């Protein structure tokens, strides 16, 4: 099918873009990579009157890595972030997760910021933003603001972003020293949306677990984190029974049954992947420390 008619806007600056967004209000949509929005337009699940195509806006294509974290501009494609050596060195979780976002061809066009603005709980990068405790930088004609991830995701495909706001970048803060991360998911076919996925971060201090946290893909309504530090604090990673988090994971996830898998199967997958990624993250933490 084809999209319904719309008016196309091609701003060249952030100010121009936010001016148009303020002008068209609820009838406008930002177009970034289009890898989520254009399918919705083609299927006429969305028919905004105005598309604000930000692909020509200057200053949104940078990946900045410094001592505090990785800042990803709104026009950075998934593939660019995945390949970036400095981003990988600072935050390996980015590449660990990006390798699971769709197929390479979709990653060539889709933006990481777009997938966060889209707020699909089946998306990998919202879960990564949650686990890092990231920030969303939003610009608007009447003022800019920064939104902490905990205040950003409200529900399925729902965020606290206002129609007149443009996300200019997201920031993924670094984990504390001694942290290892891991990401795993299962899909019907590599590159498809996950039946269930898990990101884990384990911090080892003086040879014992100081912190252990998880976030989930496709099995919760809203991307959020589960802190399982209590279960493992003070244990040497080799001595930890990572499966001991299973009850907490079961209680945390709320998967749904669909064409591809039952809720029960997804919960089982999430539980299994959770302890495996914790073990892998702990082992990566030891490698980082070594």
């Amino acid at each position, binding site marked *: 099918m084809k999209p319904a008619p719309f008016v196309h806007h091609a701003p060249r600056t952030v100010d121009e873009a936010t001016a148009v967004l303020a002008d068209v209000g609820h009838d406008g949509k930002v177009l970034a990579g289009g890898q989520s929005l254009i399918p919705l337009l083609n299927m006429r699940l969305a028919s905004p009157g105005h598309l604000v195509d930000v692909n020509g806006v200057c200053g949104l294509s940078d990946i900045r890595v410094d001592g505090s974290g990785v800042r990803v501009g709104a026009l950075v494609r998934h593939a660019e972030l995945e390949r970036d050596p400095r981003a990988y060195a600072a935050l390996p979780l980015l590449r660990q997760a990006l390798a699971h976002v769709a197929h*390479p061809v979709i990653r060539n066009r889709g933006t990481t910021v777009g997938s966060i603005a889209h707020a699909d709980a089946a998306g990998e990068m919202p879960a990564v933003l949650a686990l890092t405790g990231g920030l969303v930088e939003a610009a608007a004609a009447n003022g800019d603001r920064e939104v902490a991830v905990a205040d950003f995701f409200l529900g399925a495909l729902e965020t606290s972003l206002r129609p007149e706001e443009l996300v200019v970048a997201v920031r993924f803060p670094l984990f504390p020293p001694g942290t290892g991360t891991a990401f795993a998911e299962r899909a019907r076919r590599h590159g498809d949306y996950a039946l269930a996925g898990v990101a884990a971060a384990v911090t080892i201090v003086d040879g014992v677990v100081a912190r252990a946290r998880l976030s989930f893909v496709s099995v919760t309504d809203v991307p959020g984190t589960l802190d399982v530090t209590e279960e493992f604090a003070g244990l040497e990673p080799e001595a930890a029974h990572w499966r001991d988090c299973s009850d907490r994971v079961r209680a945390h996830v709320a998967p749904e049954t669909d064409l591809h898998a039952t809720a029960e199967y997804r919960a089982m997958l999430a539980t299994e992947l959770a302890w495996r990624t914790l073990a892998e993250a702990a082992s990566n933490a030891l490698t980082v420390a070594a």
Partner: protein
Amino acid sequence: MSEPMVEQLLDVTVTVNGRPRHARVPARRLLSDFLRHDVGLTGTHVGCEHGVCGACTVLVDGAPMRSCLMFAVTAQAYAVTTVEGLGSMDGLGPVQQAFLECHGLQCGFCTPGFLTTVTAFLCDNPDPTEGQAREAISGNLCRCTGYQNIVRSVLRAAELRAEAT
């Protein structure tokens, strides 16, 4: 509803296979339809129009992308290569030649998307393993071949490219 009463028409010029191609089109014209209907290059096929089948894949500044998930007006910023740009009237490109030799196609509907995807893949990875070849085509659907001969074609194309250099 919110739809504008008068359809917005735009003068769009996209560089396709090295030549600027112009048409006056609605803002909502997908790149896939621009190529097929406005430019007349019907090699790019359209299967699903939501990014899943891969038949419409073209090269955008050399990188494979779905032409059904880009508007023609946005594509003006890039150089687009379609399946027609992979060979010439005098001869087939190495990937096309390999698909011919290895029976990498039956009905041919999916083939343009495979050819463009594989062409870009071999630029990044000129000597892939069978596993990497499978992974490279995992975003493209084929309803005929069962994929075995497509995987063989990818590996054969790598050989042909190596011989040519």
